[in-house]
């Protein structure tokens, strides 16, 4: 019954998406200040649809929890012997389940928008919900017609075939749902942008409605990418944190667009500039998340971690992509001219700096996009290439470096118009800091240029991030400003971690007999023994490594080489020793014929700062949202108070009441 309830809920939800779309579209027919009688169904349709989509997902979750082997998806992706937590996370560790999760989050965010958003004009709201319904409908069609998660097997399977062991990790339990929520949050930004474009209501009030959605999606994407990077770092056993893999790029591209969008929507909300640019970025950001879904789901790209791929489904998503993005850009082209112009600003101003960084982000996005799609293009001519770090690193650095420079001075500039001479001192300070750090570090050794520049930029950015707080009463600084300071400081921290990893990492690879010792950094690593161990659904050989720092007390590290039996596959479980100033990373390899074991060790100074930085950036975003919400609540309270006072005045027959002293 469970599967049938889930399937029925999905079909009903799809029907409601149609209702939402049609009803919402009627809102556009209403006159100014009125509500079309047929438009009132859009909000309830969105809310009920959200409940149904969540119900469908819970049904699938339940089917995985009890390992219902009569359902094809469960049988092919789960196993009765699997640890319970991975039975649950296995729900979205496959194509159908992750698409159901995607649709569930999409419907949920649409429902939340419909239920709680009361500030938008009804016409814009209706148009927004219509677009949201249209987007949802496409994905319902995709699920129901080509990837039904609830399909039954004619005969229940005796046992499931298990889950890819690389996915049996807590990192994979949190990473995809956060990324998806981020992707899908951008769908709301997209719908809002289209709604506002259709009704020509692009103004600061609209931007204030859109901003929390953009910020929320951006925070989730930041967190998801950070978690994904750390997962790849410890789970693949390669010791790297970013591989420019198409699947990683698929999440980076929407993040780049969302970062630009977040900044431009803030300018629109606060300063009423960048109206059409914001709308365009809204369309672009969601296009990138759709494209990401297409790249990951279609199997058109070779990737070390492209899961659950199927070219036929790729065609379906490509169709959706063309329909939505093509449609959106067509409407954009037709309507952009009709959007009233925003306020003007000089080139040297806070807005100017933001525009510059927006453009740089877009350029990096273009670099990543072209590099990711290039193998696809050449394959059409039967030339197979793969594009990697030798392309991505320098090409993106060319635009990232000026972006970081402007990012340092931008927040010091005034809105509207400013003179560069006013911040001469700060610019000199930052420039000398940049040069001093590079000179100092290169004095102690010869390092590659990019990590050196990264270190200098990190130092300058860290100082620049806190400069806007100078001379202000800290208790009075708005929470949203703290958010910006923290996020920018997080960029400096992450950059510092990346540069250190690039410049100072030490690596040691050796075949070691039990009892033998290897030296790396300040550490003496002794291989005490290698022994077999067993887990719930795997066996492994585990090394006991005693790590002594400067002859101190030993710490044990236990890297494993695991073998899973269903599906039969091996993984490397790295072991990490985390210190405040870096990580020791250990992997065990094969046994050589003479009995020695291959051991790979890395000492990575400050590598953890990469992810601390990511978390700080996300935290900055959260503070920003919290600050905005607080201001909104206060503003609403003030408006309500004013209305109450006017009502009281009216009740007194227009006699002015004495103003209470405050």
């Amino acid at each position, binding site marked *: 019954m469970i599967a049938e309830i889930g399937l029925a809920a999905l079909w009903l939800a799809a029907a409601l998406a149609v209702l939402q779309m049609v009803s919402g579209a009627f809102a556009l027919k209403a006159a100014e200040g009125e509500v079309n009688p047929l438009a009132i169904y859009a909000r309830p349709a969105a809310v009920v649809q959200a409940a149904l989509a969540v119900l469908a997902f819970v049904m699938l979750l339940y089917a995985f929890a009890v390992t219902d082997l009569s359902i094809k998806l469960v049988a092919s992706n789960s196993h009765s012997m699997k640890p319970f937590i991975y039975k649950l996370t296995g729900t979205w560790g496959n194509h159908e389940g992750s698409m159901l999760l995607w649709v569930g989050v999409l419907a949920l965010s649409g429902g939340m928008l419909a239920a709680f958003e009361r500030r938008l004009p009804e016409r814009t709201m209706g148009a927004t919900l219509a677009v949201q319904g249209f987007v949802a409908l496409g994905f319902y069609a995709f699920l129901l017609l080509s990837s039904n998660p609830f399909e039954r097997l004619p005969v229940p399977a005796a046992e499931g075939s298990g889950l890819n062991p690389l996915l049996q990790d807590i990192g994979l339990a949190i990473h995809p749902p956060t990324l998806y929520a981020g992707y899908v949050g951008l769908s709301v930004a997209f719908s809002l942008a289209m709604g506002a474009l259709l009704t020509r209501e692009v103004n600061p009030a609209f931007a204030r409605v859109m901003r929390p959605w953009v910020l929320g999606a951006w925070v989730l994407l930041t967190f998801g990418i950070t978690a994904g990077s750390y997962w790849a770092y410890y789970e693949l056993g390669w010791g790297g944190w970013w591989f420019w893999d198409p699947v990683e790029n698929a999440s980076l591209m929407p993040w780049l667009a969302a970062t630009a969008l977040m900044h431009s929507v803030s300018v629109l909300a606060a300063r009423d500039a960048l109206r059409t640019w914001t709308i365009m970025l809204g369309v672009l950001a969601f296009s990138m998340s759709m494209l990401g879904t297409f790249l990951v789901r279609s199997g058109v790209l070779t990737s070390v*971690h492209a899961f659950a791929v199927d070219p036929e489904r790729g065609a379906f998503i490509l169709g959706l992509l063309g329909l939505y993005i093509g449609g959106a850009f067509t409407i954009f082209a037709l309507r952009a001219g009709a959007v009233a112009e925003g306020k003007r600003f000089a080139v040297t101003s806070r807005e100017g700096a933001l525009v510059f960084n927006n453009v740089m982000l877009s350029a990096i996005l273009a*670099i990543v996009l*072209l590099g990711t799609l290039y193998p696809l293009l050449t394959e059409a001519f039967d030339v197979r290439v*793969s594009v990697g770090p030798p392309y991505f690193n320098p090409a993106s650095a060319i635009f990232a470096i000026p972006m970081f420079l402007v990012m340092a001075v931008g927040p010091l500039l005034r809105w509207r118009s400013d003179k560069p001479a006013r911040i001469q001192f700060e610019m000199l300070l930052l420039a000398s800091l940049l040069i001093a750090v590079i000179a100092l570090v290169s004095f102690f050794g010869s390092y590659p240029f990019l990590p050196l520049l990264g270190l200098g930029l990190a130092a300058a950015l860290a100082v620049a991030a806190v400069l806007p707080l100078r001379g202000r009463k800290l208790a009075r600084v708005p929470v949203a400003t703290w958010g910006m300071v923290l996020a920018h400081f997080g960029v400096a921290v992450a950059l510092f971690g990346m540069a250190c990893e690039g410049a100072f990492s030490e690596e040691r690879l050796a075949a070691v007999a039990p009892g033998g010792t290897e030296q790396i950094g300040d550490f003496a690593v002794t291989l005490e023994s290698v022994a077999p161990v067993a887990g719930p659904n795997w066996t492994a050989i585990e090394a006991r490594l005693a790590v002594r720092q400067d002859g101190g007390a030993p710490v044990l590290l236990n890297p494993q080489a695991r073998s899973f039996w269903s599906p039969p596959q091996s993984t490397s479980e790295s072991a990490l020793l985390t210190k405040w100033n870096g990580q020791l990373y250990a992997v065990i*390899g094969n046994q050589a014929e003479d009995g020695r074991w291959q051991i790979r060790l890395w000492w990575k100074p400050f590598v953890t700062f990469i992810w601390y930085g990511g978390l700080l950036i996300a935290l900055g975003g959260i503070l920003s949202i919290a600050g905005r919400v607080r201001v909104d609540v206060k503003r609403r309270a003030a408006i309500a108070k004013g209305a109450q006072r006017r009502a009281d005045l009216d009740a007194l027959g227009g006699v002015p009441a004495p103003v209470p002293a405050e």
Partner: protein
Amino acid sequence: MKAKHQRLILVIIALLAIVGAGLLAAWSLRNQANYFYLPEQMASDPPEVGQAVRLGGMVKAGSITTMPDGVTVDFMVTGNTADAIPVRYSGILPDLFVENSGVVAEGSLGPDGVFVATNLLAKHDENYVPKELEGMGTEQAAKMASETTVGLKP
């Protein structure tokens, strides 16, 4: 400056940056793309010494030898023809690196004609076949998939 002009300038700057990014990308993709070679391609038209490329093929049976240091491995990679490229790799071998299995080696050709790999990508899950080898033709690909895949049901 009139508002119209300012907008126009902004749009032009944005377009220039994007087009610049595109041109830069196109240029570096021509020069720096991490090219993928099959063994027969590498034998007939070898890349420049030191250029970052990828070599994809099958690990030749009986060709894996481990050097005395215990961590350097020499092996031959074959493709659809008899050509075989010697590869040297120092590092921990991927979990599923075995004879007759599909492998993608990242690295560059040395002056002595040995391909020095900095990274080996073996198949990553039970269904993984290097996509670049799919051009082998269905029969061959199916044969290779069954040969290189542990536990794949026929």
